[in-house]
């Protein structure tokens, strides 16, 4: 009986320790919480959304660094899909601030907008910049500023 009670107490203590270890450690610099994804349903067709988004990128003074047409790429492996496009955007003036604060954030730029056709409409997806950059030193102001830029740009394309 004493052995069973001792074993039970030991198991409970170990369980508590394991729980504490899980709570205490978290994961990486973002505490295990990944970036926040934003999906905006567009009121426009896929093509119209792309046109508006491209204009919106210019209007907020960003640079369209690269555009990837997945629909065309997937045809290379005999797959027909609806419209799928990636637009990568940024600007050197933001780059100077980003790299000046923390070079390891270089993996996050250019930032990506993903546009996919959804019936006769489209969805524009991206990761909220502040949620991406909060994992690096000294990026608070830049993240918030880019949040506003991305909101303006994508709202203009989808509303």
């Amino acid at each position, binding site marked *: 009986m004493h052995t069973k009670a001792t074993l039970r107490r030991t198991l409970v203590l170990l369980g*508590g320790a394991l729980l504490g270890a899980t709570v205490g450690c978290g994961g990486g*610099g973002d505490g295990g919480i990944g970036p926040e994804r934003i999906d905006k349903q567009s009121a426009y067709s896929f093509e119209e959304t792309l046109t508006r988004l491209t204009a919106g990128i210019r209007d907020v003074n960003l640079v369209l660094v*690269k555009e990837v047409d997945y629909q065309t790429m997937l045809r290379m492996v005999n797959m027909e899909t609806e419209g*799928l496009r990636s637009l990568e955007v940024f600007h050197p003036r933001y780059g100077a601030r980003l790299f000046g604060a923390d070079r390891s954030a270089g993996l996050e730029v250019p930032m990506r907008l993903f546009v996919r056709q959804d019936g006769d409409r489209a969805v524009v997806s991206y990761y909220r910049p502040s949620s991406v950059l909060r994992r690096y*030193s000294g990026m608070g102001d830049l993240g918030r500023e880019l949040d506003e830029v991305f909101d303006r740009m994508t709202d203009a394309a989808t509303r």
Partner: protein
Amino acid sequence: MRYRKSYPVGTLVLGGLALALMLPAPAAAQQPGGMPMPEGRLMVPSKYNFNETVSRLKQAIGQQNMMVVAEADHQAMLSMVGTQSKGMLTIEFFHPRYGKVIFENNRAAGIEVPLRLVVMEGDMGTMVSYNKPSHIFGKYKGLEGLGAELDGVLERITAAVK
């Protein structure tokens, strides 16, 4: 009369929890600014200089039957705004055969591709940084196997600079 002291289970759990929280957490890899690396981030030191590292990585990408889709030369971009920096290049790569897996199983994951490697020249040498594919795709239902497969591909690519 025998007296047996009994401990409520809740007390024992709390005691264990308190003990565990007092123990130091395992050290996480740190970025130069002192913050831990984002989860899933890997940093690979290269034994070659910046240009040789870039060249070897591109060759290795082709050897793994992947395609370089784009490059972003951050050093050149920063010089446009009068900022001098050491070498810094993003290489984006993928292959439509993997794209097919993504778009057949969970097209929301399309935002995660092409994959990226960043090559950074520093005072201590050249580093290659990337996000582990299993971490990227692990959050998408149906793509766990793809993530594991691409982990191996990235390991073989970055082995070219070790």
